[in-house]
């Protein structure tokens, strides 16, 4: 799980899709299938968590020196 914590959402999603496809192909040995299933459920949870427990990302702006600093999106009055 510590390994999966490093995964980006896109990577996790891709892995999850690959696993589902492998399992659906049906020619996986049962023990391997259980491993896949557990891994898939973890990935699914990971994706879900990322989507649900998301904190608003800080939008940044690049200054003239080419470094990034926080950017406040001004709502229209």
């Amino acid at each position, binding site marked *: 799980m510590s390994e999966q914590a490093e995964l*980006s*959402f*896109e990577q996790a*999603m891709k892995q*999850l*899709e690959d*696993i*589902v496809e492998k*399992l*659906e192909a*049906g020619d*996986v040995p*049962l023990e391997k*299938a*259980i491993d*896949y*299933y557990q891994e*898939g*459920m973890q990935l*699914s949870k990971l*994706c*879900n968590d*990322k*989507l*649900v427990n*998301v*904190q*608003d*990302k800080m*939008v*940044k*702006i*690049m200054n003239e020196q*080419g470094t*990034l600093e926080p*950017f406040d*999106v*001004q*709502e*229209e009055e």
Partner: protein
Amino acid sequence: MSEQYLTVTALTKYLKRKMELDPHLRNVWLRGEISNFKLHTRGHMYLTIKDDQARMQAVMFAGSNKNLTFMPENGMNVLVRGEVNVFESYGQYQLYIKEMEPDGIGALYLAFEQLKEKLENKGFFDPVHKKPIPPIPKHIGVITSPTGAAVRDILTTITRRFPLADATVLPVLVQGPNAAASITGAIEQANQMDLFDVLIVGRGGGSIEELWSFNEEIVATAIFNSKIPIISAVGHETDTTISDFVADLRAPTPTGAAEMAVPSRLELLDRTSELERRLQRALSGLYSEHEKTLKRLMSSYAFRYPQQLVSQKEQQLDTASERLQRTFDNQLTRLGTNLRQLDLRLMQQHPERQVETASTDVKLLEKNLQRAMGWIVDKEKVDLSTMISKLSLLNPLEIMKRGFSVPYSNDGAIIKSVQQLDKGDQLSIRLADGVANCQVIDTKENRNE
């Protein structure tokens, strides 16, 4: 009178001063048609401006014509602003053009059409060059003005739809003379940073002049050369710029660009739960399949009647061992018989027996030999006496005893024909009891042949 003569140069300079002092000639607005247009390699443009009745030489130096948004052509009606002055070397007055724009048709529209055609011919709009937009981007670069509705629409849409993605604004000027260079610079900078996986380039709505930087060739080229996929979002849906044609994806509005750049969080939640369902379904399908197989195996004959299976095997074992014993016995008997036969044959071939046979043979052969020898000797004796009596019959002396004689010539040869004899030849005749020497009186040959 002679001091009244002027040099050509002096008169030309005088005229030039006159013209330069006339404020009307300093700033002339002129309408006419271009002819004899020539673009010099150093960038200056030489042309004639004419109407139905008159024509005037004109030049537009590189410094002035670099701001032209279109390329002048012969036959084009133009509005020009410039000053009239004298070109001293030729003694010729001409119009020095500062600004020029097409008459009748909008300059920008013309420039737009010209650049569009040019870039289209260069393949900038070709779908083969369009890069795919990543389905789930990690970091979106937003190249637009940091103020105004466009940047706000883009950023709020991104964070609302897909808060997982980072977004960074690369602030640029989006109108005015420096906008094109500013936008171009930001696109190039973004490409050097290895940070963004998609770029949104755009601005909010405005007049064609305000949107103009997105119709500039340098911006189009920067978009075309970008390795990062670019979504263009310039103005409203009805505004179409060159950038829109070159970009990998064209969005109708800035908000639309943000929607195209990121997936919706809610859609992704649906997607993950769908994947989860498929995962469970696949596994339970696999389970029930294995379960079915297991049940089938458990209900098989072997599991239901194990004893039967064993006794059947036992019976098979008995049969097999019986067969083994029988085969073994048969083999033994057969081999014993063989052995006895061989023994017998061997005994028959015993050497003593052979010696016996051989000595019997020898005795028999000896007897035969002796008998044969006896026969041969007897036969030879008979033959000899027969030969002797035959010989005695043939003895010439015996024949001569019966009255025959033999004539010999002087040289001792036997005379067999009268032809060997001539009258008076000496010969001797041998009789049984002696020899008579004779002379031939006459010869007479028999004619009975």
